[in-house]
């Protein structure tokens, strides 16, 4: 039997145009984000360090400073941004061209799975229950793509993207954007957090993300350690802020000026 030609050797036009459909999706995201001055992914790699808390308060400080600011809550399974921004309305489509983000405290616009799901409902998808692990991750990535490409953000100075723990959503974000976004890292002082955050930062560096710096959260309480300083030295970046348990009013504004 003669060798069978490989996938890449078959070059006839594909009527399904799957490649074109994917390209159109990317084009839609790029077009939507063309009016966004800056995209910053807030990541940690570690759960429970206060990423969303930092993201929401930073966004509010930036908005108070006069910047058009929005937050995309990329934690699809544990969305908390609308609660932190007191954004409770359901997002509405103004036309078939886009979905309006919801405005929260200080005029920060946001989109979140919490605005789509009924209160308390877990994220679930219609589809075959058996072996859902095969497609669930792809569904979540598709939801992230629609949040990026279908929300009518309008002109923005900065879009903060609140990532869930781990690096998977960050990788999906890079793929959807077609480029690695700048990253702001959040940790708490402990060695355990340092080790988890290190993995995330290494992943971000390997994908080409500029590291904006580190925010050390929950400082001065029961958590002991020097995670932020160690990570800053290891990755040649800055500690932008140390957030105490009870931040002063100017804590967030100061952080905003250091981004």
């Amino acid at each position: 039997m003669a060798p069978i030609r490989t996938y890449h050797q078959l070059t006839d036009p594909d009527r399904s145009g799957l490649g074109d459909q994917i390209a159109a999706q990317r084009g839609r995201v790029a077009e939507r984000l063309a009016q966004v001055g800056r995209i910053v992914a807030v990541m940690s790699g570690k759960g429970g360090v206060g990423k969303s808390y930092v993201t929401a308060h930073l966004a509010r400080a930036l908005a108070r400073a006069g910047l058009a600011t929005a937050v995309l809550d990329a934690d699809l399974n544990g969305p908390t941004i609308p609660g932190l921004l007191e954004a409770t309305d359901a997002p509405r489509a103004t036309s078939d061209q886009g979905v309006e983000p919801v405005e929260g405290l200080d005029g920060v616009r946001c989109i979140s799975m919490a605005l789509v799901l009924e209160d308390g409902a877990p994220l679930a998808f219609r589809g075959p229950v058996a072996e859902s692990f095969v497609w669930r991750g792809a569904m979540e990535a598709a939801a992230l793509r629609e949040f990026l490409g279908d929300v009518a953000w309008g002109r923005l100075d900065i879009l903060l993207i609140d990532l869930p723990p781990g690096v998977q959503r960050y990788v999906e974000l890079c793929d959807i954007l077609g480029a690695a976004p700048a990253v702001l890292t959040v940790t708490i002082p402990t060695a355990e957090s340092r080790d988890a955050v290190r993995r995330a930062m290494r992943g971000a560096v390997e994908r080409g993300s500029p590291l904006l710096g580190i925010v050390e959260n929950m400082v001065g309480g029961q958590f002991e350690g020097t995670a932020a300083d160690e990570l800053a030295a290891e990755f040649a970046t800055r500690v932008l802020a140390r957030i105490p348990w009870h931040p002063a009013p100017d804590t967030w504004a100061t952080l905003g000026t250091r981004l």
Partner: protein
Amino acid sequence: MKFLCVECDQQMAFGERQLPGDGTLAATFKCPKCGRVVAMLTNPMETQLVSSLGVEIGGRTVPAEPFEMVNAMVVAGSAGSPAWSSDAQERLARVPSFVRGMVKKIYADYAKERGIAEITPAVMDTARSELGLEGM
């Protein structure tokens, strides 16, 4: 995914797509040289994987609507959510699909907050009036 007619060494061309409604998909491909037709049959899991990519085998005939996947595939509610009467479901179905999921959530939240077990057209009218949702 491409199909090759091994005998003719020709790439087969997409023919048609059928969605029987049981979660499976059938797509036919035809050899342009010998005319042989094969059908690709996907199981529900494979079909789901394709739809999760936001693409349509056979090509898109209309542009994607905003939040197309989120509105179509995300289960907005859960156990304990209010039921929808058939009349209310029919009315909801007339809402444009790109906004249907969000509209459904608004009514569902309204009903849950008031302990309403079933959403009917009357409940929808009251909610519209109270929430200022004319046009929904």
